[in-house]
């Protein structure tokens, strides 16, 4: 069994060479013939979460899975919906100015750069801060690190840590495993340059959301296998981790917002180099060799087609002897994390994640 997966991994590595070629024309490729979400929105969405999701149709959101990538990237994001709800609540949408940022390149492609988040408290203390390397979501096709500004900003502030939010080349211009290659390269670069930013590279952890949660876990595996600095912890927020299309959450949250099950097929269509990639252990993480990983924290939303990914990954990690805590928050959906100013479940999840990372950093 393990041999089979290794063969799949080697094959996709070879195809990975082809994935290096940039193809912006693919942005126009017609969407795959997918069964679109005909099921109603699942019940049980809490009122505060609903107040955010209700902004999406007001912002003109269309079903992503029916769009070509160029159109899908014009769509409002969950962060746009959150900002609209924040403004309508009479609060400021301006990013928290006590955390400052700087963009730095880690590679030659314009997308190979990172945003360094420095907490205000970093100035003048002299003592090096912990380092957190973070990967944004968007199914490897949509969104960018600006759309996922809230999480790294709040983690930098609440952990008093240097947070490096990694941008990476997106699909379909660059297909799998270009994103995984960039994630690993950026991690090595961040550890190497940490001291210059006032961070301590021996106190490093990984975090990510959705597709970025998958990248965080894979980068921890990469560090284990390539003698890079070993992260003290991995925070995976609703990661992509299981390629089984029959998972319970794929059905019970098929019509959820802002992520529905059809979108997962859409992401796969545009991000994978071939159908065999689904079996690659980097995507189907539940079948990867997970032994020797640091403690892992997994955050899930109840109403999310990726909920079962997190739950089955927690089992797989325990089976591999890894210390793991997984929590599923009720009444909330995909993308709820870092919406804590409006959504109670998000506030609770943020407290949980921060407490786990503080423990990992010895704070």
């Amino acid at each position, binding site marked *: 069994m393990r041999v089979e997966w290794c063969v799949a991994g080697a094959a996709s590595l070879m195809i990975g060479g082809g994935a290096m070629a940039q193809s*912006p024309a*693919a942005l126009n490729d*017609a969407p795959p013939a997918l069964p679109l979400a005909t099921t109603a929105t699942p019940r049980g969405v809490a009122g505060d979460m609903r107040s955010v999701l209700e902004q999406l149709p007001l912002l003109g959101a269309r079903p992503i899975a029916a769009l070509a990538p160029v159109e899908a*990237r014009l769509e409002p994001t969950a962060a746009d919906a959150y*900002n*609209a709800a924040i403004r309508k609540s009479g609060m400021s949408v301006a990013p928290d100015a006590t955390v400052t940022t700087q963009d730095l390149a880690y590679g030659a492609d314009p997308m190979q750069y990172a945003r360094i988040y420095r907490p205000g408290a970093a100035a003048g203390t002299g003592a090096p801060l912990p380092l957190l390397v973070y990967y944004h979501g968007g199914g490897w096709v949509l969104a*960018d690190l*600006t759309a996922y*500004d809230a999480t790294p900003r709040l983690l930098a502030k609440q952990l008093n840590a240097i947070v490096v939010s990694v941008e990476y080349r997106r699909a379909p211009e660059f297909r799998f495993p270009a994103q995984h290659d960039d994630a690993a390269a950026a991690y090595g670069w961040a550890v190497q340059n940490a001291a210059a930013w006032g961070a301590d590279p021996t106190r490093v952890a990984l975090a990510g959301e959705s597709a970025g949660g998958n990248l965080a876990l894979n980068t921890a595996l990469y560090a284990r296998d390539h003698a890079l600095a070993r992260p003290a912890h991995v925070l995976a927020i609703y990661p992509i981790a299981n390629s089984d*299309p029959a998972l319970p959450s794929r059905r019970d949250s098929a019509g959820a917002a802002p992520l529905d099950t059809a979108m997962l097929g859409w992401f796969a269509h545009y991000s994978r180099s071939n159908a065999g990639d689904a079996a690659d252990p980097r995507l189907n993480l539940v079948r990867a060799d997970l032994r020797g990983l640091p403690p892992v924290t997994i955050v899930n939303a109840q109403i999310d087609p990726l909920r079962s990914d997190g739950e089955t990954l927690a089992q797989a990690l325990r089976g591999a002897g890894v210390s793991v805590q997984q929590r599923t928050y009720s009444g909330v959906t995909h993308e709820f994390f870092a919406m804590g100013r409006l959504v109670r479940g998000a506030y609770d999840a943020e407290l949980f994640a921060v407490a786990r990372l503080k423990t990992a950093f010895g704070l």
Partner: protein
Amino acid sequence: MRALAGLMTLAGAVTTAPAGAQAMSPARYLEAAGAGDLYERAASQMVLESTTDAKVRDFARMMLADHARGSAALRAAAARARVRVPAAALTRLQTEQIAELRAETGLARDATYVAQQRSAHARALTLHQAYAAGGSAAALKAAAGRIAAVLARHVEALKAM
């Protein structure tokens, strides 16, 4: 495992795309590009009314000039391609973003403007790159490529802010 692999193959078959690209129509491209330029002018004018930051001011002035030039280049290209240019109108998202800018003052408006600019330019760059790579009207395609090069420079300028 074999069962899982079978399902994957099945899923792969279902997700096979129809042969050939389905590029944006010239009219749709012009609509989205026109909305983007209109948003740039409205947002940049608003931040210029309040900012005291020289970097923000210089960037906003550059946006006013470059996006006016981009709109003019597209109008000329559309005339050559014999495509009618639709009247520019903000999308609902852009209307909300202008409302957010209006609700902020001082440094908070500057920071909101820069954050919005990063998102708006990521969207606009994809739009013009995609049309330059796969558009159907040759004159518009060429203009899209030139505009994408200007937007790529804006993206780099935003990284320095």
